[in-house]
């Protein structure tokens, strides 16, 4: 686990911060245009995780976190987390879909999005020529790709 943590830090450090060409405003616009089914309000946190190139296709990955404040909540606050997938074209970002996740990802390395989970239950989302995988396992839990 110690080795894993050190490596995790290295992965984060190796990732560029927000590429100048992808900003939160563009992400918000792309989500609105792409019929995103989640909420886009003041409780949303958006963070670019990184970009992946597979062949001629370029993807941008972002973390979406929505969490109610206690004042707004009925009973306990609820929260949801997603890994957003966009295709990057010359015209801008196009929202492809997302995965419901339990924790924010660490970053991107090559063609993989990496999570801080043990490897045995799955800790990566690997993109190939077919695009984002329709289903995957993260920390032993099954996840689907959807809007």
């Amino acid at each position, binding site marked *: 686990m110690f080795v894993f943590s050190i490596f995790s830090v290295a992965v984060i450090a190796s990732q560029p911060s927000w590429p100048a060409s992808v900003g939160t405003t563009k992400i918000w616009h792309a989500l609105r245009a792409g019929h995103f089914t989640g*909420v886009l309000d003041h409780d949303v946190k958006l963070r670019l995780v990184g970009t992946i190139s597979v062949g001629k296709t370029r993807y941008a990955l972002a973390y979406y976190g929505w969490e109610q404040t206690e004042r707004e909540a009925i009973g306990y606050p609820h929260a949801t987390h997603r890994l957003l997938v966009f295709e990057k074209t010359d015209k801008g970002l196009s929202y492809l*879909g997302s995965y*419901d996740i339990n924790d924010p990802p660490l970053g991107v390395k090559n063609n993989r999005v990496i999570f801080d989970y043990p490897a045995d239950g799955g800790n990566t989302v690997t993109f190939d020529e077919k695009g984002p995988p329709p289903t995957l396992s993260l920390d032993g839990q099954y996840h689907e790709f959807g809007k």
Partner: protein
Amino acid sequence: MASFEIFDAPPEVAAAQVRLRAEIAAQPFWLAGAKLALLAAKDGFNPAQPRVPAGCTGGGQWCPAGGGGGTAKLPQTKRPKRTGTRHEPPKILHPIGPVGDFPETGKNDWRRWNDDVFTNAANEFNAANEFSPSDPRYVSPGFMKTWAMVESGSSADRKVFLTDPFQVNNPQDWVPAKVTIAGLTGPHQPMTPAISATAALKWLLYKGTKQGTYMGRYMALRDYNGSKIKSYYAAEVMFRTIINFGVHG
């Protein structure tokens, strides 16, 4: 680099790893329980004392002492005019009984209106999955009612309690997987307590299962909620269930 590759461990080693991770992850549950016990031990402090509901002046604050159980005088706020269909009290065939601190007599009678729905949902869920009472995934009506009370049982949340008591289809935290896993149709699906209970149980089972192993109700509830205080949420549901309906509740 190699640490990210799938580790091909023998099944017994993998199972032991899963159990160990569950035990480590359950630590916050016991810490939360200890914290609750300490709070309860404080002179004059009742952790179950109701709070002023969200949206009211002073929302989130404790109600005045002695004003518990939904009968407290809340800060004066102008309530919107009641619109839509009034809910008529149903005839309850299988009363579950009250969850402490959530009275269900007089004007709080609505808290027992879902009792039959909870009982039916629990029975159908157990039967469909062949869960016996000794199975950790087995759910009882008492657990269902306690869970619903923690989710939407405060006096300000009556409307939610009578439509989506488990808040499984809160449009704000909608995710597409709820279609295939929880059987919902979309974030704006009209909800009833029966739809809510059935979907919530499926979603809870999904959230609690990793690598094909059920991680326990505490872990399932934590990921069902997902917020920063998910450990407290899970602990409260579990403690209230045990206190009101016993360890098998």
